[in-house]
Structures are given as C-alpha cells and as structure tokens.
C-alpha cells in the first residue's frame, strides 16, 4: 500500500467525506494517519471543520491553523510539503474541488512521491458529471490542472438522504464505463453506511471492488451526530 493517497475531483463530489472515511478505515487497520486539507476554494464543509472530532479519534489533521482556517485565502500549513514527502504513517490528501481547487496540488506535485495513489472521486448525480462522457471531460480538466494523472476512480454516487441501493448501483456502473473510457480501474465504491443492511445486494454488483462505508462527518448543525450527542 503506498504511503500517500490523494483524492481529487469536482466540487461536491464527496472528496472530503471519502478522504475522512478512508482515513478512518486506515486507522482501523492500525495505521498512523494524517489527513492533509488542501482545500482553499470551498468556504464550508471542509476536512478542517471536522478536525476536532478526527483528532479525538487519533487522526492528525494538517490544515491552516487558528484564524486562517476561517479565511478564503490560498493559505497552506508550512509543513505540508514535508509531511507529504517524508511524513510518518499514512497520508491522505484531500484536494479542493474543480480544476481551480486542483491547482493547489499542481504546486505541490514534487511532494507527491512516485507510486502514490491518486483517486478521482465521482458522483454521477452531480452537475458536470451526469454521464461518463461528462465525467471524463471533468477528469481531464482536473488532472491537467493538478498536473498529476489519476491511478483510479472512486465511485461515490449518492443523493444525500434520498440515497437508495439503486442509485449506488447505477453510479457504480457509470464509474465502470468511465473506467473503460479512461483506462482507469474503479478502486473503491463509497456507500452511505446506513445502506449496510443491504450489503449482500451491494456486494453482488461491486464484486471484487472494495466498498468504503461512508459515515458523514461534515454536516449542517441541525443534523446528526449532533442529535445523538444531545438527546
């Protein structure tokens, strides 16, 4: 398993939640994990917004500190290059959305070790990736902007609280089609954790592809886990 795993993609494709849950899975295997938040284009719902709960679980979060975390400025922590190049344990990198957000990775290209995994996260229920062809164009723009070619695809099709197994299945099929168009393997299928009760049905179409169960960390203030904690 390579030490560094990068997630990039379009705005709202689910990169941050996938990155966090991937980090949680690595933690579960006993790895030391650092999540690097390279998102300088989205003002809300970033990895750093969950940093407190992640730190409590034992995951290191590298993100702009203190007041800078609230700024919409292209600020990165000064240790980011060192952590990506030579940091200890597993490093999970969450890149900002769209070609604009991916530019940041372009500037840090030299810090991504050879052999790292670079995953393109795609939700076929999102604008500008409604079809494999649209997604292929988006993938091209994002990877050009980042200056790093992807090594695989993460199928992450969902519809928020409306998600059903059929949406995941449909999205997985479209991801495979995107894979055929681009020559890339589908390396993970991300599935909301509440669909676990239908796992037999899900494993039937994901086959050999690992399933990453997604528990949401980046939520508006009126949604769980607040509810669990409070009442």
């Amino acid at each position, binding site marked *: 398993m390579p030490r560094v795993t990068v997630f990039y993609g379009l*705005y*709202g494709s689910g990169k941050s939640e996938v990155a966090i849950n991937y980090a949680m899975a690595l933690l579960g295997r006993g790895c030391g994990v650092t999540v690097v938040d390279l998102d300088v284009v*989205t*003002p*809300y*719902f970033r990895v750093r917004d969950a940093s407190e709960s992640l730190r409590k679980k034992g995951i290191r979060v590298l993100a702009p500190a203190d007041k800078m975390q*609230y*700024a*919409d400025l292209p600020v990165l922590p000064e240790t980011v290059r060192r952590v990506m190049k030579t940091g200890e344990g597993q490093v999970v990198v969450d890149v900002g959305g*769209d070609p604009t957000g991916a530019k940041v990775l372009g500037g840090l290209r030299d810090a991504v070790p050879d052999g790292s995994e670079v995953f393109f996260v795609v*939700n076929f*229920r*999102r*604008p*500008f990736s*409604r079809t494999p062809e649209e997604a292929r164009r988006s993938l091209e723009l994002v990877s050009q902007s980042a200056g790093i070619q992807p090594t695989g695809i993460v199928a992450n099709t*969902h*519809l*928020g*609280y*409306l998600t059903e197994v059929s949406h995941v299945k449909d999205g997985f099929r479209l991801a495979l089609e995107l894979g055929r168009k681009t020559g890339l393997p589908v390396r993970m299928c991300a599935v909301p954790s509440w669909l676990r009760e239908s796992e037999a049905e899900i494993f039937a179409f994901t086959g050999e592809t690992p399933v990453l169960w997604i528990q949401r960390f980046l939520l*508006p*203030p*009126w949604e769980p886990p*607040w*509810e669990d904690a*409070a*009442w």
Partner: protein
Amino acid sequence: MSEPVLMKGNEAIAEAAIRAGCRFFFGYPITPQNEIPEYMSKRLPEVGGVFLQAESEVSSINMVYGAAGAGGRVLISSSSPGISLMQEGISYLAGSELPCVIVNMSRGGPGLGGIQPSQADYFQATKGGGHGDYRLIVYGPATIQEACNLMMKAFDVADKYRNPVMVLGDGMIGQMMEPVVFPDTSEVRLPEKPWATTGNEGRKSNLISSIILDPEELDAHNWRLQEKYNRIRENEVMYEVAHGDDSEWFLVAYGTVARICRKVMEQARKNGVKVGLIRPITLWPFPDKAFKDVVHKAKGFLCVEMSTGQMVEDVRLAVNGKAPVYFYGRTGGAVPNPKSVEKRLYEMISGKTPVVSDYWEKRGGGAAE
C-alpha cells in the same frame, strides 16, 4: 419532473435561473456565493446567454439595469458587502420599475466581517437598503429545493410587478448540498414587455428612467409605487406554520435557522410541549397574518436569528403587543446550536428570560453559549 440531482444551494439557484429563462448574469466574485457566477459562466454560453464578470459590484448592478431595461431576464448575485455596494443601483432599478432577481448569500458583518453564514442583512433587504421609498420582494428559502422553486417564482414575480426581487439566503443555504428536482420548464413562456427599450420601429419611444424633477410628478410616482406594493402585500405573502392548531408557544425563524428550530420543535413536542413554528418565506411582504391567526392563544413567540435581532422587530409589529416576544440570536457566522435554542425555549416557557423590550435595556439574552 426530472430525476433528482445532488446540488449545492448556489448551483441549484443558478440552474433554476437558467430554467426560468434567465439569459443574463452580471456579477463580481465574493465568498460564499462564488458557485453561482462559476456555474453561470459554464452554463450560460451553452444556452446562448451572456455571463459577464464586471470590474465591480457597482458596474454589475448597472449592467443589470441595462439588460433589464432591454427586456431580458437578468440575475445578479453577491454576498453582504457586495450587496451593500449595489444599493444605489437597486434603488434605481426600483425607481425605474425594472424587473430583475438579486441573490444575497449573506455572510457575517458589519464591514468585511467573515465568510460564515449570517442573517444580519434582513434590515437591508426588507427596509430599503438603498435610498427612497421603495420595496424589494424578498424570499428566504430554507431548503435547496425551496431555493430552486423560489428562484423560478422570483423571475415571474419580478416581471409581473416590474420590480426587483431578492432571494436572501445565508452562506449555509449556498454551500450545503441536498437533492433537488427541477420542475419541467419546457413550456415556460416569457411575458411580453412592451415597455422595454428594444427599438422603436412602428411605435413611440420607450423611456426608462428614475429621474422625475417635478415634485408633484414624483409624489404621484411614489404613491403609484405604493399601490403596487400594496398589491404585492395582498397577493404574494408566503409563510409556513407548523403545528399552529394546538400550539401555545411559537418559534419564529426563516432560512437556515428555521431548520434548526424545526428540530427543536420536533424534540419539544416529543416531550409533550405544545410548540409550533412560524416560518416566513417572504420576508417582505412580511406574513403578519401568520401571527394574527394564532396570537389570541399564544403565550409567547421566540424569534431566533443569526443576527442581534432584526426580523424580531417585524414579529413585534405583527404581534402588536398581544403576546410577549422573545429573542435569541448568534452572529458573525456562529450558527445557533439546537441545544441553545432548546434552552431558550424552556426558559421562555418557565418565565426565566426577559421579553424582548427588556432584553435590549438589560443587554442580555442573546449572548454566546
């Protein structure tokens, strides 16, 4: 009906505008609404529209004036400081009776403030903002689907009354993602605009202007505008009342905060407390009727806002002294925590919190938890 897609509020608003026939967008970037211009810059060229990033908010609102005057369906979006810069232009649009839709994804103020969600632009949106006796129709969506539906409605209402319409969201509405279904708009037919400056072949020239130097004429113009605003008050009020029938206590909130208050209401009702929710959807015209309908049996109204207390003034006017009005607010991008709202609700019920008129004198009641 199309299939649901997962969208950020900003994206849904932009797509809804295009589906409502909007073909002109002018603006200048500012967080947290940048996905609107970004989306429009991708989508408008696909449908033969014009996307133009101007050199400032002042330029962009005046471009809106031009495009609206020529009969186009026009959208402009910004966030708090940017909307402040546009106020002169908005007043001109209202004075010249030009339809357009303005989106404000408001952020913490005053001044440059911060980029987190806020509702502190309520006064600016509903009480003028710019100079002169004018009104904007103001919608406050609470979900992404509602933001999409209200955007489509906003263009129609703007055209119907020849008046600027504002969709007032907060950063949270702009940034959060929810599934959205876009209604079928293949049949959308834009209204004729015989007043527009589209060339005067075969007819008298149209003039669009807000300059009226004769005091008698300007007086008449203003009273005519008031008649229009009264028609809007009669016909366009929108609100939602949850559990109005059996409730004695009411939470009052709009937009994002209404989502939080709904959770609190549901939880309180599980505990057997008769709490309802009044959610204004049009912030202007304000839904006085929602309050009049329940005030005779209400023991108290708790208005919750992401401000130091702005809509609460309209709540007090609507309640008109017939029941106590309470307030809880957070500002600057801090979002009220459901637990804190719940605490205020029970304090109100147990008589432990001052009513709002005392609250300002005592400088209490709204501070951070």
